[in-house]
C-alpha cells in the first residue's frame, strides 16, 4: 500500500525560508604580523573593499606599538541571502621590539564577547541578542621562516581553547610547490608537537558519495592553506578578468587551485563550513566558557579544575548530562561522608560500651 504523503519533507525548505528572512551573521578575526597580507586577503575573500583608507605606521612609530582591536562590519548580500559580516582586525600584533604578552588584548576581547553573550542569555529580554562572539580566527604564518615562530606558538596556545583557529600560510607566492609542501608538513608537525588545537573539519558521513569524500580528504590534507591575496583585477592577456598579481616572469592567479589554496579556503570558510564554525563556537567554546564561569561563581576557592569537564567535539551529544553529573557527584560524595561519620560514631560507641562492660566485669 502506498504510504500517504504527510508533508514534512518540506521542513528543510521552511528552515531555508526562515533563515533567509532572519539573515546570518559571522564574525571573523584575523591575526598575524604586519605585512603578511591580511587585509588584502580579507578583501579578496569577500570581494569587497574594506581597507581602502587605512594608515600604515612607520617603522619608528612601531617600535613600541601596542596592539589594538578594530572592528569593521559590512552587510553583504548574494541571491537574497544577507550576511552581516564583522571583521575583527588586530593591527600591531608582533610589531614592537618587545612583544611579550602582546596577545593578551586579543584573549581578553574574545572573553569579553563570550561574557556579554552569557549575560544577554541570562537576561530577561532575550529577543534581540547580538551575537558578537568570534566564530573563526584566521592566523597568518609568515612564509619566510622554517615553520612556526615562538610568538606564533605562544599566541596560539593562549587562544586555542577559546576560538576556532584556521592557520594559513600567507604570501605563498614566495614558495615553490616543493617548499610549500615542506612548510605545511613542518607547520602540522609543530602544531601537534606543541599541543595546539585547531579547527578540525567534521568527518563526513559514510553515506556521502565518493566525490564528496575525496574532496573532504583533499581538503584535510592541504591544511594549513597556502594563500595569496590580491586586490587588483587583471584584464589584459587573460580569458576573463580575474584577481591576480602580475610579475615580470608570469601572472599569479588567485583563483587557480594549482597556484594557491585560496579557492579551497574560500569554499571552506564560506560555502561549506560557515555554519559549522558557528555551531562549534556555540556548542564547544561558548559552553566551555559558560561552564567555567558558573563553576567559578559557585565553587570559588574549590580545588576542582574546570578542565575535567572540558568538552571536546566528540562529546557534544553528552552535553546535557554534564551539568547534572556534576551535582550528582556532589550528592554522592556528601552521602559517603555522612556514612563514614556514622560508622565512626558507631565504633566509638562500641568502644565506650566495651570499656564500660569491662569495667563492670572486673568490678
Amino acid at each position, binding site marked *: 500500500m502506498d504510504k500517504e504523503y504527510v508533508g514534512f519533507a518540506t521542513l528543510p525548505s521552511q528552515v531555508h525560508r526562515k533563515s533567509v528572512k532572519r539573515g546570518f551573521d559571522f564574525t571573523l578575526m584575523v591575526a598575524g604580523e604586519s605585512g603578511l597580507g591580511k587585509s588584502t586577503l580579507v578583501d579578496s575573500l569577500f570581494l569587497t573593499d574594506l581597507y581602502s583608507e587605512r594608515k600604515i605606521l612607520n617603522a619608528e612609530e612601531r617600535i613600541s606599538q601596542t596592539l589594538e582591536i578594530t572592528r569593521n562590519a559590512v552587510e553583504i548580500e548574494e541571491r537574497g541571502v544577507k550576511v552581516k559580516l564583522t571583521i575583527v582586525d588586530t593591527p600591531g600584533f608582533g610589531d614592537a621590539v618587545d612583544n611579550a604578552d602582546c596577545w593578551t588584548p586579543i584573549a581578553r576581547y574574545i572573553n569579553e564577547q563570550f561574557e556579554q553573550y552569557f549575560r544577554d542569555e541570562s537576561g530577561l529580554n532575550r529577543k534581540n541578542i547580538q551575537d558578537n562572539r568570534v566564530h573563526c580566527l584566521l592566523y597568518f604564518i609568515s612564509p619566510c621562516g622554517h615553520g612556526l615562530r615562538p610568538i606564533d606558538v605562544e599566541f596560539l596556545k593562549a587562544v586555542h581553547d577559546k576560538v576556532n583557529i584556521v592557520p594559513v600560510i600567507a604570501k605563498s607566492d*614566495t614558495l615553490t610547490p616543493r617548499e610549500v609542501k615542506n612548510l605545511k608538513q613542518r607547520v602540522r608537525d609543530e602544531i601537534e608537537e606543541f599541543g595546539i588545537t585547531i579547527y578540525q573539519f567534521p568527518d563526513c558521513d559514510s553515506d556521502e558519495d565518493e566525490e564528496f569524500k575525496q574532496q573532504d580528504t583533499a581538503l584535510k590534507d592541504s591544511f594549513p592553506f597556502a594563500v595569496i591575496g590580491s586586490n587588483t583585477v587583471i584584464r589584459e592577456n587573460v580569458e576573463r578578468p580575474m584577481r591576480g598579481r602580475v610579475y615580470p*616572469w608570469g601572472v599569479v592567479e588567485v583563483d587557480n587551485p594549482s597556484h594557491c589554496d585560496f579557492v579551497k579556503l574560500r569554499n571552506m570558510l564560506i560555502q561549506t563550513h560557515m555554519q559549522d564554525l558557528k555551531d562549534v563556537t556555540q556548542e564547544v567554546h561558548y559552553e566551555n566558557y559558560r561552564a567555567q564561569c558558573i563553576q567559578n561563581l559557585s565553587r570559588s576557592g574549590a580545588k576542582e579544575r574546570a578542565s575535567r569537564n572540558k568538552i571536546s567535539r566528540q562529546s557534544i551529544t553528552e552535553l546535557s548530562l554534564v551539568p547534572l553529573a556534576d551535582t550528582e557527584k556532589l550528592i554522592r560524595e556528601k552521602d559517603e561522608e555522612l556514612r563514614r561519620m556514622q560508622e565512626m560514631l558507631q565504633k566509638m560507641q562500641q568502644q565506650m560500651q566495651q570499656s564500660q562492660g569491662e569495667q563492670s566485669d572486673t568490678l
Partner: protein
Amino acid sequence: MAATDIDKSSNEEKRNLSLGGHVGFDSLPDQLVSKSVAQGFCFNILCVGETGIGKSTLMNTLFNTTFENEEASHYQNGVYLRPRTYDLQESNVHLKLTIVDTVGFGDQINKEQSYKPIVDYIDTQFENYLQEELKIKRALFNCHDTRIHICLYFIAPTGHSLKSLDLVTMKKLDSKVNIIPIIAKADTISKSELHKFKIKIMSELVSNGVQIYQFPTDDEAVTEINASMNAHLPFAVVGSTEEVKVGNKLVRARQYPWGVVQVENESHCDFVKLREMLIRVNMEDLREQTHARHYELYRRCKLEEMGFKDTDPDSQPFSLQETYEAKRKEFMGDLQHKEEEMRQMFVNKVKETEAELKEKERELHDKFEQLKRMHQEEKRKVEEKRRDLEEEMNAFNRRKVAAETLQAQSLQAASQQPLKKDKDKKKSVKTENQSGANLSSSKVMIAKANMEPLNCDSWWQAMQCCTCLVKNAAWREGFF
C-alpha cells in the same frame, strides 16, 4: 728646531717636474698588484636577518658554491653569531672569505637585546686588531684580518616599510660597519609595489639618520656605474642554487607554476647589480672604508677612553710612550696599594677568628665543669635515695616477719573452730583483694594453722610465732 724647519721647507718646495724619458716607475701599481695577489685577499661578510629569510641561499648564489649549512631553528634563546671561514680561488687569486651568520635574530618575543651580540662581535674584531697593532712585536701583514668589511642587512618583503627591529638594529650598526640593505625574497613583490617599497625604506632610513654605505663616486673609472647603483638601493634579490632549463640553457632560477624567476635576469631582480657592486667593483673600497673610517673611529674612542690624548695642554704632541709609562706606573702603584689593603684585611680577619675560637673554647670548658658538677650532685642524690629505700625495705621486712608470726599464733588458736569460719575468712580475704602478697601468705598461714596445734600461751610469744597467732581465736577476731 731642526725637524720643523725641514718640514716647512719641504711643504713650500713641491714642484712638478717633467720627465725626459721613460723611467719605469709606472710599473709600481703592477708591483703592488702582484704582491697582493701573492699575499692573498681576505674579506669578511656579516649577514643579518631573520631566520629563514634566505641568507645562506644568497651567499651560495653569490659565490656560486655551496657553503655547508644546517637550517637554523626558530627557538634559540638569544642571538648568536656563527663565523665560518672558507678559502676560495679564482684564476690565481686567493680569497679567504669569512661569512658570519646571525642565528636566532628576530625570533625572540622580546627583541630589545637582539642587536647586542652583533655589536659586541664587531667590537671584538676591532679590539683584536687594535691589540695586534699595539704590540711590540707585531705581525700585521701576516695576521688574519677578521674585521667585518660589509654587513648585508636582509629586509623582509612586507611591502609596507621597515620593521621596528630593523630600524633599531641598523641605527646601532651604522657607525661600526658598512651596511648595505637588501630586500630578501623579492619574488613576492610586484614591480610597482617594489618601487614604492624602496622609496619608503630609503626615506625612513634618511629620516632616522641611518648611514648606509654609499658606493664611492670619486674615482672616474667607476663613478658612473656607482652613482646609478646608488639610486637602486636597497637591492631586491632572489637567491637560488637550483638550475632550471630556460630556452636551451640551464640557469639558476626558481620554478613556480606560473613562471620561472631567473636569478641573473636584470628585469627579474637586482642580484646581478648586487654582485657587481659587492664583488666586482667595490670590494677593495669596502675594506679601505672599514680600515680608514670605522676602525679609526673605534680606535680613537677606545684610546680616549683609556686616557690618551693627541696633544698636551701646551699643545705639544704627546709621546705615546711617555703616556704609556705614566699609566703603567699609576697602575702598578694602584696594584700595590690594593695588595696592601688585602693583606691587611686578611690579617685582621685571622685575628678576629682566633679570638672567636678562644671564646668558644672557654665556654666549652665552663660548660663541661658545670655538667660534671651536676652529674656528681645527681649521683649523690641517687645514692641517698637508695639508702633510704634500703632502710625502708629492711623496716618492711621486719614488719612482715612480725606480722607473719602474729598470724601464725592466731591461726593456731583458731584451729579448733569449724570449717565455715574458714570460709568466712576466705570470703573476707577475697573481698580485701588489694593486699595481694599478704593474702597468699595468710592463706598459707591458715592452712598451716589448721594442721598445726597452737602451742603458745601468751600473746607476746604468739607474735613471735605466726602459727600460734593464727590459731588463737581472740587474736583472729581482732586481726581480721
